[in-house]
Structures are given as C-alpha cells and as structure tokens.
C-alpha cells in the first residue's frame, strides 16, 4: 500500500472539494417541513396536542368505562328481574 503524503496535501485536496448542495426544489421542501416541525416543537400547535391528549387520555377512557358500567348495571338488573 502506498503511503499518503506526510504534508497532508491529500487532506488539503479534500478540503478543496466543492460543496454539493441539494436540488433547490428538494431543499425548499425540506426547509418548509423542518420549519413546520420546528413550530410544533416550540408549541405552535399546542392546543391541538392538548386537545388530542385530553381526548385520548381522559375523555375516551371515561366514556368507555361509563358505557361498560351502565351495561353491567343493566345486565345485573335484568338477570335479577328474570330470577325473581
């Protein structure tokens, strides 16, 4: 294997390689998406996140638990009425 040159000319040559920018359309798309994500991360859509959390963590479980409770009460009462 041949040795790289000790003065680092190979690294200098690498340093001189031009930057390779993204295609302008893609760059604009990424910028828009990233800015939207940036806004969300800083609470731009906080009301939506809070509403979703409220629905999925509080309201939906409460409604389901209530429905199950009502059904069980009705079932016990119906069974009891039949027995008597």
């Amino acid at each position, binding site marked *: 294997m041949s040795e*790289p040159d000790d003065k680092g000319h190979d690294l200098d040559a690498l340093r001189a390689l031009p930057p390779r*920018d993204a295609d302008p359309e*893609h*760059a604009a798309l990424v*910028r828009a998406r990233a800015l939207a*994500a940036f806004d969300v991360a800083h*609470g731009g859509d906080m009301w939506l996140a809070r509403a979703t959390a409220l629905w999925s963590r509080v309201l939906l479980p409460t409604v389901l638990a209530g429905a199950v409770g009502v059904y069980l009460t009705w079932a016990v009462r119906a069974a009891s009425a039949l027995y008597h």
Partner: protein
Amino acid sequence: MRDPAEQPLIDGLRRGDRAAFATAYDRYRARIHGFLLRLSGRRDVAEDLFQEVWLKLARSAPRLREDTDLAAWLFTVARNEHVSYRRWSMLDVSRLVALGDEGSYASHERAPDALTDDARAMHRLERALAALPAASREVLLLVGVEGFDQEQAAAMLGVRYDALRQRLARARAQLAVALEKLEKTETKKAARAAAPETIRGAR
C-alpha cells in the same frame, strides 16, 4: 472548534425563533447534503437522510444545550442517520442491492475528457473517495472535506483519539492507492484514444 459567534443562533433555536432556524439551514445545508451524498454515494438516499437531519434539529431545538456546537451536532446526526440506514439495509434485500451501488453518483458525472486539469483531478478525487469503505470515507469527509479537528472527529464517530488517528492514516493510504489506480486507468485510456490518431497521422 465551536464558533462563539454562533451563540445567538443557538439561543434563537432554543427560543423557537424561525429566523434562527432558517439561518442555520442556509448556513449548513450544502455542507450537510454534500457530506451525506459523498457518504452514501446515492442522491436518493442522501436526500432522505438530509431531511431526517433537519427534522431532528427542528424537533430537538428546544432541548439543545446552551453550549451546543451546531456544526458538530448536525454532522454527528447526519453520520448516525447514515449508520442507521446502513444497518437497516443489511436486513432488507432490496436495499442491500442498493448498498452495492454506493459511490455510483461520482461515476455518473461528466466524463473527465470534457474537464480542465483541475476539474479532472477533483473528479478523480471524488471517484477515489467513493471507492473507499464507508468507515474510511466518513473519517476523510469529516477531517479532510469538512475540516473538523481530529479530537472533534473522534467524538463525532464515538471512537478514542488514538483509534481515530489510526483510522485516518489507513483511510489516507487507501485513498492514495485508489487515486493511483484511477490515474493508471486514465493514462491507459488516453494512450488508447491517442493510438488511432497516431496511426492515422503516420499514413
């Protein structure tokens, strides 16, 4: 090393200042894209990973440390995204085929004959770089192309300083060999192209 002039940019990112994000994007966009393109060797992969890097910055901005070195942060994320991509590619047969195609972007560009001497040398360097193993390529990209110092590069790659130095020396040697091979190939091609003209001239 961290640029102290970037402190307002970091503060802006932490605060949610859109202008700060746009400035960071404009400042590092080309470098990050170029790094990913040279690292992955594929434009489509580079574009996907490029998007992931910026989405990650957008989502992590509120939690950035005050003393964050933004360039190092971005290149570390970009490198880690590429590592994850390669890891998943190993498990996905269709992507595995694509991995074998790494570096193809460099060979699809303009033919060296149409370039000046400097441009031809750069083209050769790009091709030699693309021909190296990923581990060698990433260290040359960080230290050579991007100009990070070796301690920073070691931290970014998650290796000890000594290991980084060894890896860099090996990568430079591999690059020299790859360049030598390409030069020989080009010389042979040029000789073959010139031969018919010599014969015609002799007639």
